């Protein structure tokens, strides 16, 4: 999964989002050990201090935890990850609904478009 960072938003908050996404999608599985700050920073081509800040925030939120001797790990709490997933889903849907409303569709129409496209994609 490549790191996608936009240039007009703070890097720190984008790193948090991207790591959350990697945890939710299983790139970093539950309870697994995270790469070092240095490696992650290099992979994302960002400043190590910025990466460190993002990881510290995720730790504060409880999604990551540090074992003093052996490094940083992803939480094993399934519910917590479920919560993050729901939050991310909500954000995506909000953005989507906003755009669809701008295009002039009402709620009923949007639902029917979703159903049709989902059917098409199944085939």
């Amino acid at each position, binding site marked *: 999964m490549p790191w996608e960072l936009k*240039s*007009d*938003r*703070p*890097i720190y908050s984008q790193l948090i989002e991207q790591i959350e996404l990697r945890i939710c999608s299983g790139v970093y599985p539950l309870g697994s050990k995270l790469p070092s700050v240095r490696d992650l920073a290099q992979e994302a*081509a960002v*400043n*190590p201090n*910025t990466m460190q800040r993002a990881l510290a925030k995720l730790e504060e939120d409880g999604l990551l935890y540090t074992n003093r001797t052996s490094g940083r790990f992803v939480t094993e709490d399934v519910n917590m990850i479920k919560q993050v997933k729901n939050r991310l889903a909500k954000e995506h849907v909000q953005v989507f609904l906003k755009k669809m409303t701008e295009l002039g569709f009402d709620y009923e129409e949007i639902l029917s478009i979703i159903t049709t496209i989902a059917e098409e994609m199944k085939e």
Partner: protein
Amino acid sequence: MSNILECKNVTKVFGAKAALRDVTLNIPRGKIVGLLGPNASGKSTFIKLCNDLLTPTSGEILIDGKKPGVDTKKIVSYLPERNYLNDWMRVSDIIGLFRDFYTDFNEEKAYDMLKRLDINPKDKLKTMSKGTKEKVQLILVMSREAQLYMLDEPIGGVDPAARDYILDTILSNYNENATIIISTHLISDIEKILDEVVFIKEGKIVLTKTVDEIREESGKSVDSLFREVFKC
């Protein structure tokens, strides 16, 4: 001491022209700082003053608490804006020179980077393109285990792919107690790796902020803000 570089009211005048005017700036350890400004804004003058190639007309510069001189050169790794290496030398000769000259030079690191950038250590500098020469110089500078790196336009002449590798090299070789100051106007390429940016305009510092502060406050990239501040 937490600041690697302290600069107090520094002014540098060339004849009737002031290249730097009353510059006060403190740069902590462990940061990557971008010194950003248009042409002729005083970036190189500032870096030269820090490396004892120029002396301030007034004011004071302290590196690790000392005035620029022999002692600070031991801990500062400087990439000048132009090539100063002898053209007839082979890369391996120059590595030998650096090894003899600087006690903090890591020869192994230099050869490793040459290999990754596909540069033959047996090649003479004069046979190399401008971009390759720049790469060699940057490799030499980044192979020192210095406390302060001052890179004057390090990526100007190299292609975008090599630029990415060079930024990667800077990130991977950077030790967390060292500070890197990079002067450039190729901002969009490097803003992701910077902690802080210093905007310099007509010899004066007009802004010092972290990259994320700039993005947060203005909703713009450092590159866009730069274009706005320095609009011609």
